[in-house]
């Protein structure tokens, strides 16, 4: 005779028997017999309508009857019938896990997606349930945010702590002139809501740090890197590898851009491509070197496309390929990428198992032998020197085009790159103050001059930006 195994908790209703033998030609008959023999067990297995409760699964030997003939599954007589509950759960409330459907408004909004066989309703639901983290709401973040919102990505987390500045508007098209001075997060979220009110925007008004990165990124399915500096790029990479999240990468400089997908499936990560950061200052940022405003639009749209493909699971992503784009000659090239088996973070024997200090890793943490505070001059001290009529040289090490935009009267211009071959223009014993836009390049000039025997060289902290802020607001900021 078939026997029904009784779960521990129900044995109180079966006189402590752990199995009950039943007759019956089908599973339905067998269960009816069990409940008529032990009526109290009935309410545990069936609801008021006489249907099996939602969490109850019935197995005949090792087969779920849902995949056999359900209640009518035939019994020969030697079967073991098991009652197995469905169990699931989790820390979230059910609200965020309700079965997804598209509303009529969404079905209309996304109709051009839904008619693509590669997307369909199923794909659109994947987009709706997807959570994408966007690091930076700047040049790359702008097009990525706009298009992911329009495409119907359900949740977009944005990490940024900047405010909208006039110099952003030439490329950061998610912000408008009316947004000047607003937090980029607020401005971007408003624009996203305007495009698609169905999108939930999570705002993280902070820099991404080793302390908060895992906590912020752990809830997202895909991470889009729209950062403009090496420490954060390595941080995003390592966090994505540790969390096993795809990192959709893009970078831009002047007229050239790159994009790929890191840490996806078994593909390479950023450290496989660049194990070590470049020496500080070697690669200028867009703020220092400039960028064609349209360039982040193109690279960002490539990142948005790859993100959507990853969510939908369609096509061939840029995994293992670095896409190189040059706007001046309008050419795309590709470099083959390979996972480095010895990569310190994603290789076979990783040595980086938690997030590290990325400022230090990129050589940007000030070290002890840096010049003492009295070896620097700030904007106000520089003004005092002018006012006192000190005999000194103000050396501007910026590029000529920057000098055209704004200058401090009385300065002489020798761009940092030209300095080594123009040392003879300067008196090694003169009192020299070097300045640039913000104080980074001029510090390098100071170091260079000191190495060449200059005795009295000081850096102006804060650069011409500080001069405009604190001394002469008629000097334009750029």
């Amino acid at each position, binding site marked *: 005779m078939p026997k029904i195994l009784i779960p*521990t908790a129900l044995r109180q209703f079966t006189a402590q028997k752990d199995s009950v033998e039943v007759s019956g030609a089908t599973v339905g008959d067998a269960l009816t017999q069990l409940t008529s023999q032990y009526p109290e067990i009935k309410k545990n297995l069936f609801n008021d309508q006489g249907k099996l409760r939602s969490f109850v699964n019935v197995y005949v030997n090792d087969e779920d009857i849902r995949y056999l003939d359900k209640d009518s599954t035939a019994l020969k007589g030697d079967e073991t019938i098991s009652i197995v509950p469905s*169990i699931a759960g989790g820390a979230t409330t059910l609200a965020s896990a309700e079965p997804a459907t598209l509303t009529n408004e969404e079905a209309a909004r996304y109709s051009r997606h839904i008619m693509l066989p590669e997307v369909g309703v199923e794909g659109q639901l994947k987009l709706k349930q997807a959570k994408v983290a966007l690091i930076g709401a700047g040049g790359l973040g702008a097009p990525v945010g706009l298009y992911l919102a329009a495409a119907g990505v359900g949740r977009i987390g944005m990490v940024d702590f900047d405010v909208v500045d006039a110099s952003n508007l030439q490329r950061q098209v998610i912000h408008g002139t009316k947004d000047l001075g607003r937090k980029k997060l607020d401005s971007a979220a408003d624009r996203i809501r305007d495009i698609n009110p169905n999108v939930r925007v999570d705002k993280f008004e902070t820099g991404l740090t080793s302390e908060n990165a895992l906590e912020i990124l752990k809830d997202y399915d895909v991470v889009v890197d729209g950062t403009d500096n090496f420490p954060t790029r390595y941080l995003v990479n390592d966090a994505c590898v540790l969390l096993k999240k795809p990192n959709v990468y893009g970078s831009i400089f002047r007229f050239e851009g790159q994009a790929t997908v890191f840490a996806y499936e078994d593909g390479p990560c950023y450290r496989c491509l660049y194990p070590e950061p470049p020496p500080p200052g070697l690669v200028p940022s867009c703020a220092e070197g400039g960028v064609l405003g349209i360039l982040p639009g193109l690279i960002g749209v490539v990142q948005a496309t790859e993100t959507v493909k990853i969510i939908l699971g369609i096509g061939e992503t840029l995994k293992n390929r670095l896409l190189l784009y040059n706007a001046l000659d309008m050419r795309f090239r590709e470099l083959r990428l390979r996972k480095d088996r010895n990569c310190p973070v994603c290789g076979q024997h990783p040595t980086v198992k938690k997030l590290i200090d990325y400022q230090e890793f990129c050589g940007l943490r000030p070290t002890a032998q840096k010049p003492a505070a009295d070896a620097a001059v700030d904007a106000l001290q520089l003004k005092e020197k002018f006012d006192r009529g000190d005999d000194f040289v103000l050396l501007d090490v910026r590029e000529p085009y920057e000098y055209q935009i704004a200058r401090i009267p009385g300065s002489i211009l020798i761009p940092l790159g030209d300095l080594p071959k123009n040392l003879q223009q300067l008196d090694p014993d003169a009192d020299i103050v070097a300045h640039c836009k913000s104080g980074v390049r001029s510090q390098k000039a100071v170091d260079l001059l000191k190495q060449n025997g200059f005795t009295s060289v000081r850096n102006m902290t804060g650069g011409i930006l500080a001069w405009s802020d604190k001394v002469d607001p008629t000097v334009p900021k750029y």
Partner: protein
Amino acid sequence: MLEIETHPWQAIVLHAERTYPKECCGAMLGHAQGSKKVVTEAVPLANSFLGEQGTRYELRPEDLLAADKAARARGLDLIGIFHSHPDCDAYFSETDLKNSCPWYSFVVVSIKNGAFDHANSFLPDADQTRAEREELICQKS
């Protein structure tokens, strides 16, 4: 009352910490005498939730069936289910309740920053409308 012996308790905490930041899950085997239940073995099972497992878990019924068989083969009973809440307190969430079953004790383990924080045990009702907390005795070492 649910008592978890030292060995299975260590296994549960270890599994939860290793699975962090995802949720872990598993079965608890032992024996029941009236309302007192003693767990003598913990069986880690796969989290089969298709999606972000940081805040969800799902047990495959086949795995539970196998755990039940293993228990019976050793003269033990399947008496409970455990799962973890990474960086979250050990409460019985709405999701836990709506996917529960009244036949077992449900132990929720809170793991914060990768380390065990606290745990609670719950007994959900048949209609999945409420879960009562039950006394939990676990042997920390």
